[in-house]
């Protein structure tokens, strides 16, 4: 099925798929009217979508290295854009982002700017040149440009550290959603999530992941936008929320001024369940210093340009030109969701705190709030909590607490949307987390199978054997990730941000200078990767263990320190050692010209 004219038929295939999915939503809402329970609807949504991904994964099976590693380099720009957007937007973007904006306002929105601005760096500094190079993996570029097994191996190490930090968070997210939707304990749900992930990538490698990611993007964007538009219309806030919520934003500012941000005593806060927070920051005012905002945005931007699972998506386009355009499409598809997250946060917050709205709970009596159905549901799910700290019997702004996830998960229910929307949101969150986890596990497994096994250990291995190794690694890494995820060591968002910092500490300058500075050599690159990663990690450990840090660099932005060390080390060591030989310099020249054959052959 997926051969030759499949590529030409893509718009039709995914058009039918989208129509089918919308049809499924309608069938489910009819079923809800006829009395299907909320739980069954949730199970149907998650099971149906995961089954579709598994079928796509099966149909994309392949025995060719080119198809397995880079999807045969024939993915059209727009579809590659969708796949990248799904690859990029993780469980954190889908479930946690609106919540972060809801609670932290401006200081958090540095992430929106950072996670989009990074694509400008990807498009202008790296993607087209790495595509011209014709590599299978990111370490493949480092290893060939700088030469030597040590540089290749160092790149694999940085890639693994960053991606593995990231992937445990994603498997954790699939587990959370699977456990809620299927009503099974988290420890088992994590493995259900993992098996769903592996179904997409095991047989078809990058090809399977590409076509499932496109399908997952369609599910996740419908699941995000439909509730936002619906809620906005239902509240009478405007039929196109993105352009029409100015009144709501200023109304929130007005209410904030009216209620004031009362600080709770430490004693009172002890009562609040772990992970829940109250509204303590202004919604639309600037509540962070310029450096706090800029340093976080900058770290995320440089991290974006160093994360291998994103970069390798641009290896799958048919040409260099297509790689550039494809970055634009990726960001466009990401923009659709990211620009909606602040709108969802606004709608969610206003509907909860505005006493003049029927859904508003601030100012109502505590007993009344505690008797609301949705409050009871989400209180039971440990995502909402109220307490009468001042004993006056009414709920104040500082007495209402919520989990970050609740903004996306609970707002539809609060606004009175049918349950079918909650099922849809669960399917969307699952799609977001699965697609990112797939990309990451594949990035690690491919780097180890291609760069360590094939390039370093056994360069004579046959394709069949290489692909067996790649698949075994996929399973091993997946299970390792799931096992760590099941331990629930740290939150989803924190580990995602760390992944960016690790990636930028070790890989940003070795990648960028590999293209833009001919004088950069092997010794410099190795020093840059090694010292960057080590100093970044050391800074993180120092700050985590009570260190004060310097220059306002926190545990969320330690990559700024790591990458600065990496840059200095790389430049100094490069200049102190011999310039790269003529062949390498010629190779860099060729990379800079889009036309002509790629540096590495089709089968390497």
């Amino acid at each position, binding site marked *: 099925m997926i051969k030759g004219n499949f590529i030409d038929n893509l718009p039709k295939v995914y058009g039918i798929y989208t129509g089918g999915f919308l049809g499924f939503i309608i069938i489910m809402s009819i079923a809800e009217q006829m009395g299907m329970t909320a739980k069954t609807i949730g199970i149907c949504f998650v099971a149906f979508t995961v089954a579709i991904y598994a079928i796509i994964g099966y149909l994309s099976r392949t025995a060719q290295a080119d198809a397995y590693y880079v999807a045969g380099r024939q993915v*059209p*720009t727009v579809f590659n854009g969708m796949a990248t957007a799904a690859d990029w937007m993780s469980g954190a973007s889908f479930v946690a982002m609106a919540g972060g904006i809801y609670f932290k306002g*401006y200081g958090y*929105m*540095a992430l*929106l*700017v*950072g996670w*989009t*601005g990074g*694509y*400008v*760096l990807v*498009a*202008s*500094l790296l993607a*087209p040149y790495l595509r011209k190079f014709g590599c299978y993996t990111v370490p493949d570029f480092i290893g060939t440009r700088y030469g030597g097994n040590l540089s290749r191996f160092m790149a694999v190490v940085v890639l693994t550290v960053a991606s593995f930090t990231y992937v445990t968070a994603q498997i954790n997210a699939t587990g959370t959603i699977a456990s809620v939707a299927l009503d099974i304990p988290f420890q088992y749900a994590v493995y259900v999530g993992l098996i769903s992930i592996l179904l997409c990538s095991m047989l078809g490698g990058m090809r399977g992941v590409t076509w499932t990611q496109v399908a997952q993007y369609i599910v996740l964007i419908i699941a995000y936008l439909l509730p936002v538009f619906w809620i906005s219309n239902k509240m009478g806030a405007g039929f196109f929320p*993105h*352009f*029409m*919520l*100015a*009144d709501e*934003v*200023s109304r929130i500012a007005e209410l904030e001024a009216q209620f004031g941000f009362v600080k709770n005593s430490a004693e009172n806060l002890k009562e609040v369940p772990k992970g829940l927070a109250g509204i303590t920051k202004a919604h*639309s*005012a*600037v509540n*962070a210093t*310029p450096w706090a*905002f*800029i340093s976080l*945005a*900058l770290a995320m*931007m440089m991290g974006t340009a160093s994360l291998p699972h994103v970069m390798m998506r641009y290896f799958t*386009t*048919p*040409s*260099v*030109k*297509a790689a*550039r*355009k494809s*970055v*634009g499409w990726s*960001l*466009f598809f990401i*923009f659709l969701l*990211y*620009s909606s997250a*602040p*709108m969802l946060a606004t709608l969610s917050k206003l509907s909860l705190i505005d006493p003049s709205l029927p859904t508003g709970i601030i100012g109502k009596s505590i007993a009344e709030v505690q008797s609301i159905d949705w409050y009871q549901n989400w209180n039971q799910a440990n995502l909402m909590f109220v307490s009468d700290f001042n004993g006056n019997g009414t709920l104040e702004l500082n007495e209402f607490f919520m989990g970050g996830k609740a903004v996306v998960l609970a707002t539809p229910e609060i606004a009175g949307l049918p349950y079918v929307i909650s099922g849809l949101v669960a399917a969307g969150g699952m799609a977001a987390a699965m697609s990112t986890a797939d990309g990451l596990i594949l990035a690690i497994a491919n780097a180890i199978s291609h760069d360590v096994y094939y390039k370093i250990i056994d360069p004579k291995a046959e394709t069949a054997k290489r692909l067996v190794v790649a698949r075994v690694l996929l399973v091993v890494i997946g299970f390792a990730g799931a096992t760590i995820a099941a331990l629930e060591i740290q939150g989803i968002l924190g580990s995602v941000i760390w992944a960016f910092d690790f990636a930028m500490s070790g890989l940003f300058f070795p990648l960028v200078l590999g293209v833009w500075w001919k004088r950069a050599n092997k010794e410099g690159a190795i020093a840059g990767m090694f010292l960057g990663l080590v100093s970044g990690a050391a800074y993180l450990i120092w700050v985590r263990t009570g260190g004060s840090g310097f220059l306002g660099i926190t545990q969320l932005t330690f990559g700024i320190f790591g990458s600065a060390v990496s840059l200095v080390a790389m430049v100094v060591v490069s200049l102190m050692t011999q310039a790269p030989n003529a062949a390498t310099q010629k190779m860099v*020249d060729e990379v*800079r*010209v*889009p*036309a002509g054959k790629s540096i590495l052959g089709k089968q390497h």
Partner: protein
Amino acid sequence: MSKQEQHWEKSKGLLMMTLAIWFVFSIGIFLFGAEMNEVTGPFGYPLTYWFTCQGSLGIFVILIFWFANRQEKIDEEFGFSERGDD
């Protein structure tokens, strides 16, 4: 200067321009976040708030497409464009 060097000079020029625009909307304007937020921006949102929600993000999308088109023009000018379309 060889054709290839000229091509690279022009590409570098384009890169610098792209990065300058990127810098303004990802870093530059947020140096004045507090002052800028006093101003009412598009659709009536406070200006800094609008930039973080939509403005900067949208500008990045347009910037990448603009960059890609300009780079294609440069490649064509020197006969380095690839044959075939996507």
